[in-house]
């Protein structure tokens, strides 16, 4: 029952190696829930460089990728450690150019969401009522546009169509159709806006079966690769499979404050491990994964 258009299940390592070139514009989305951490670690392991990283809410995984020097530019709307505080590697890059300067392009959440929606819709831009009275308008890519019917002036933002979008989902079936539920953020739009979409999943099942609200399906023929990576969202979570590892987020503050501590942590736990299973063991979260 497979045709040429249907995605083949693959490994995360192969997907990153073959589909994520240096210099690519890469969006890794997940709104607190379902963040593709394992994929980010694999990008670090494979030493990808000069990436334009895109994400509404760059959090710890982007802090890690920025800290090791994967990124030359960040396109975002809110960069923090949710519920904890600053992203120290992100701040070090912006405030002190370490490990190298990081170009920024920032929007509001509404602007980023509209940009992805335009990308998913095949439109070159989106309109929204945004940025009114702010200094953001001067520091971001936007234009104003007048309603041809009412004369109201609105914001226009360019469509966002990443070279590669990477997301994590709960399930794939054996044909590579992907199902996710709960808080799905902007993932559907980010996946449909991209030229190439990679999905890591908790589980491969015979039939997609939501165990929560807001079920979203991405058919296999819109995807480039699907890789089973159980626990691949850790320390984020996958509703129905895992809970958020809040202790990891809190602990990250300490690890990321100091350049050397951070470098050592990456060396030991990411570069020093082969894959997500051995990574989880190395950080002491091996139970129940893999």
């Amino acid at each position, binding site marked *: 029952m497979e045709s040429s258009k249907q995605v083949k299940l693959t490994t995360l390592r192969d997907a990153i190696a073959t589909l994520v070139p240096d210099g690519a514009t890469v969006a890794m989305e997940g709104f607190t829930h379902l963040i593709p951490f394992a994929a980010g670690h694999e990008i670090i392991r494979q030493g990808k460089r000069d990436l334009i990283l895109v994400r509404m809410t760059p959090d710890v995984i982007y802090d890690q990728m920025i800290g090791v020097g994967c990124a030359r530019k960040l396109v975002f709307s809110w960069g923090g450690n949710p519920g904890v505080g600053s992203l120290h590697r992100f701040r070090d890059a912006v*405030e002190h150019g370490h490990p190298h300067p990081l170009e920024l392009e920032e929007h509001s959440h509404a602007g980023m969401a509209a940009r992805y929606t335009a990308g998913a819709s095949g439109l070159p831009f989106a309109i*929204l*009522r945004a940025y009114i009275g*702010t*200094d953001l308008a001067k520091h971001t890519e936007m234009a104003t546009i007048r309603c041809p019917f009412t004369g109201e002036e609105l914001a226009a933002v360019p469509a966002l169509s990443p070279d590669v979008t990477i997301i994590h989902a709960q399930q794939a079936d054996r044909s590579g159709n992907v199902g996710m539920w709960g808080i*799905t*953020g902007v993932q559907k739009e980010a996946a449909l806006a991209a030229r190439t979409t990679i999905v890591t999943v908790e589980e491969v099942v015979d039939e997609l079966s939501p165990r929560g609200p807001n079920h979203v399906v991405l058919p296999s023929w819109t995807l480039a690769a699907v890789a089973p990576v159980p626990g691949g969202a850790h320390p984020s979570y996958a509703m129905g499979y895992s809970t958020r590892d809040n202790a990891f987020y809190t602990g990250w503050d300490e690890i990321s404050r100091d350049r050397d501590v951070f470098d050592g942590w990456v060396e030991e736990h990411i570069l020093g491990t082969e894959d997500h299973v051995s990574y989880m063991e190395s950080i002491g979260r091996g139970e129940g994964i893999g």
Partner: protein
Amino acid sequence: MAELQPAPSSYSSDEMMTVTAARFLSDGQVCFVGIGLPSEAANLARLSHAPNVVLIYESGTIGTRPDVLPLSIGDGELAEKAEFVVGVPEVFAYWLQAGRIDVGFLSAAQIDRFGNLNSTVVGEYEAPKVRLPGAGGAPEIATSAGEVIVMLRHSVRAFVPSVDFVTSVGFGRGGEGRPEGAGRGPTVVITDLGVLRPDESSNELTLVATHPGVSGEEVRVKTGWDLEVAPDLAVTDPPTDQELEILRDLKTRTEAAHSG
């Protein structure tokens, strides 16, 4: 070795702040809520005098009634206890931008005398002293919600004459007023020391109440501009025993859940 429990009539300045903010919510209002103090205040309101307040988090959880406070805007608890969950593009387009939100809560690193908020940078944008997280949902909450409640702890670092960056507009850099069609903006600023409201003619934030035991002078000292004080300066009612009990139960449940 039981920990010392404060008597219900003893409370912290953060508790006073949260209780005060909760009281500004009316039953049935639709609120766009952020993480931290706003989430505490909104849920306290829901669990006390405003059982039908509708809480919307920007993660897309609509009409949610969490048993414990979320640590992040996308905690599973918010989705499990929501009336329904939608994608993030929808929450901003169909729910916020469409004008369905009565009250938006905002916080920030800096606020100025005209209620403008900064959560982007301290210092120059191109060479910041401190790079803050950025805008998130704030710029559109500030202009699409019917009114905005600001919660911010008082200090001269936070209450500045003019913000380094306008992330969310209050009454404009020069206090010229609200953008057209953009709602009433910040109608109240609640701090750990008192309550400020924009003056109706000048749009300048004015101290209208202090919390019990706080003097107007103390607030002025912790404000980075020459703060106006209302002639009829009021004193906030202290938290009731019931308010404190509900708030502390909520926080106890929350700590147990997040450390578990």
